[in-house]
């Protein structure tokens, strides 16, 4: 299964992935409208690594689509589920925003939505071909890789 992997050595912490993530998950497919008229939040976490309160490095974090996802098991409504391909989805229609998934995600990669009624997580932009964060990363720091490609990338 292909997953999104982020390379800390390449990440600039610019935040463009978040901009395009928001756009991808907005009902407006235009960047400006998605931000100015829609309330969606990105499904990406950008973290700074600080030394003496100065950020020296960055990485982005999306849902890891775990083999045995704790979030799915903690979900009380069945909204969080893993599909045949192994992608962990959250069905917004069924999500009650209880944050059980947030409470158990070891990566802290699930975010509460702005209206607190549901959550936001990476769905690999199914339907877009390539996830928009991957496509729009200016430094190729985010890649969509299958298991074999991961092996290569790690070498």
């Amino acid at each position, binding site marked *: 299964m292909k997953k999104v992997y982020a390379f800390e050595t390449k990440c600039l912490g*610019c935040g463009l992935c978040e901009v395009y993530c928001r756009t991808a998950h907005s009902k407006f497919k235009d*960047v400006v409208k998605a931000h100015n008229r829609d309330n969606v939040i990105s499904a990406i976490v950008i973290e700074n690594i600080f030394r003496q309160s100065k950020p020296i490095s960055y990485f982005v974090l999306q849902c890891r689509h775990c083999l045995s996802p704790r979030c799915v098991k903690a979900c009380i409504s069945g909204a969080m589920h893993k599909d045949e391909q192994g992608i962990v989805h959250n069905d917004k229609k069924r999500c009650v925003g209880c944050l059980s998934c947030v409470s158990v995600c070891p990566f802290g990669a699930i975010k509460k939505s702005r209206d607190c009624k549901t959550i936001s997580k990476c769905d690999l932009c199914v339907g877009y071909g390539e996830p928009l964060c991957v496509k729009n990363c200016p430094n*190729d720091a985010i890649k969509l890789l299958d298991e074999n490609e991961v092996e290569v990338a790690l070498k």
Partner: protein
Amino acid sequence: MSLSFDIPVFEVVRNEKRCIQCQVCVRQCFNSVHSYDEDDNVVCTDDIKCVNCHRCVTLCPTRALIIKKYPLEFRENTNWTSNAIKEIYKQSQTGGVLLSSMGNPKAFPIYWDKILLNASQVTNPSIDPLREPMETKIMIGRKPEKLDFDVKGKLLTEMPPQVELSTPIMFSAMSYGSISRNAHESLARAATELGICYNTGEGGLNRDFYKYGKNTIVQVASGRFGVHKEYLSAGIAIEIKIGQGAKPGIGGHLPGKKVGEDVSATRMIPVGSDAISPAPHHDIYSIEDLRQLIFSLKETTSYKKPVFVKIAAVHNAAAIASGIVRAGADAIVVDGFRGGTGAAPTRVRDNVGIPIELALAAIDQRLVEEGIRNQASLIVAGSIRNSSDIVKAVALGADAVYVGSAAVIALGCHMCHTCSTGKCNWGIATQEPELVKRLNPDIMYKRLVNLVSAWNHEIQEMLGGMGINAIESLRGNRLMLRGIDLNEKELKVLGIKYAGE
């Protein structure tokens, strides 16, 4: 001094309707031009810090940013231009030498743009490089007076060492220190893939890059930083740098803040110490001294590496070149006054040296007249901007060209002329880890490969148009050139006829 006369050079114009407060610009500008105001949820700008590097403009996802010339005018005055006034403000505040980066920006004539190429019509038909063989390969190095063969046709003459280039283009000397490790790696990888060479500059060569040795020219300059036997043997050729087009007669200065662990090890100097290259080589005061250095280097490398000598294009370039050839150099590199640099005193950059086109023509002419043109290859540098500049250079007598500015532009340089600050937002002329990261060699080396491949293709097209099927056949063929908008003297120095003649 509390009162500063500084005024912004650029104005950052933000289209508030398109700005989504994503703060990509805030995070990407190392000069802190942009800042986010949480209270009002707006992104603000401080124009005075802007150097117009376009980083924010390029990354802005909504194209909400434009950078303009700051509209504040001084009273119009042809003599006292705003620039002249601002320079005085600056110097009267700092008491320092004005520093600039990149090449001479002044409105001196650009002779490449006043020379036109020929094409075949009817007789000596043109050649289509897509259908017929077209050779752009060249060999750099000393060529024998004549070749001897045995009866079977086997070459008897011992050939001096040569550097083979798939196309007559090399990446100019840019030291690891002046440019980032990732920029250096991009150049090395691109040169390797292209079958051309890049040049270490005077920063030594990090051992991680020894694997690109076959495509590396190692430089020996007045500071002798990072020079040792292994280094000299690591490349395919050695270049002695006497002068640089952007600052003839001036040494180099890498500020201590750019000398981190890695640069320090490579240059063999303490971390944080300024790396100062003296103006002259303190062991070279004559052609004979130069000869001694050339042969010391050849001796060290068992005469297996050609030795280049690089000079800035100055008034007596032709005579100097003749001396260099006689001193035993295998190639002369001449760097014109538009050649780039990380930092040079502004006055020197803008007022010293001569255009490369004139220096090239003069040197080639002189060496031919003296009958020693075969003894050394002639490489020119100093603002080669495109493939037609290269074709014209070859027709004026060059074997190959060095490109520096064009290469860094391919790597993302937006010619903001602030390399010397070390805050290159594109990760090229910087050692800040956070900025170096921005230049991903995996992406950028391909851009260099693309650029040179494209130029090579264009060179083939132009050669074909002239009915020539090998670039070697164009070298020094000034009949293929005509001048336009040039006076008699210029035509004479260039050795070309006027258009229509």
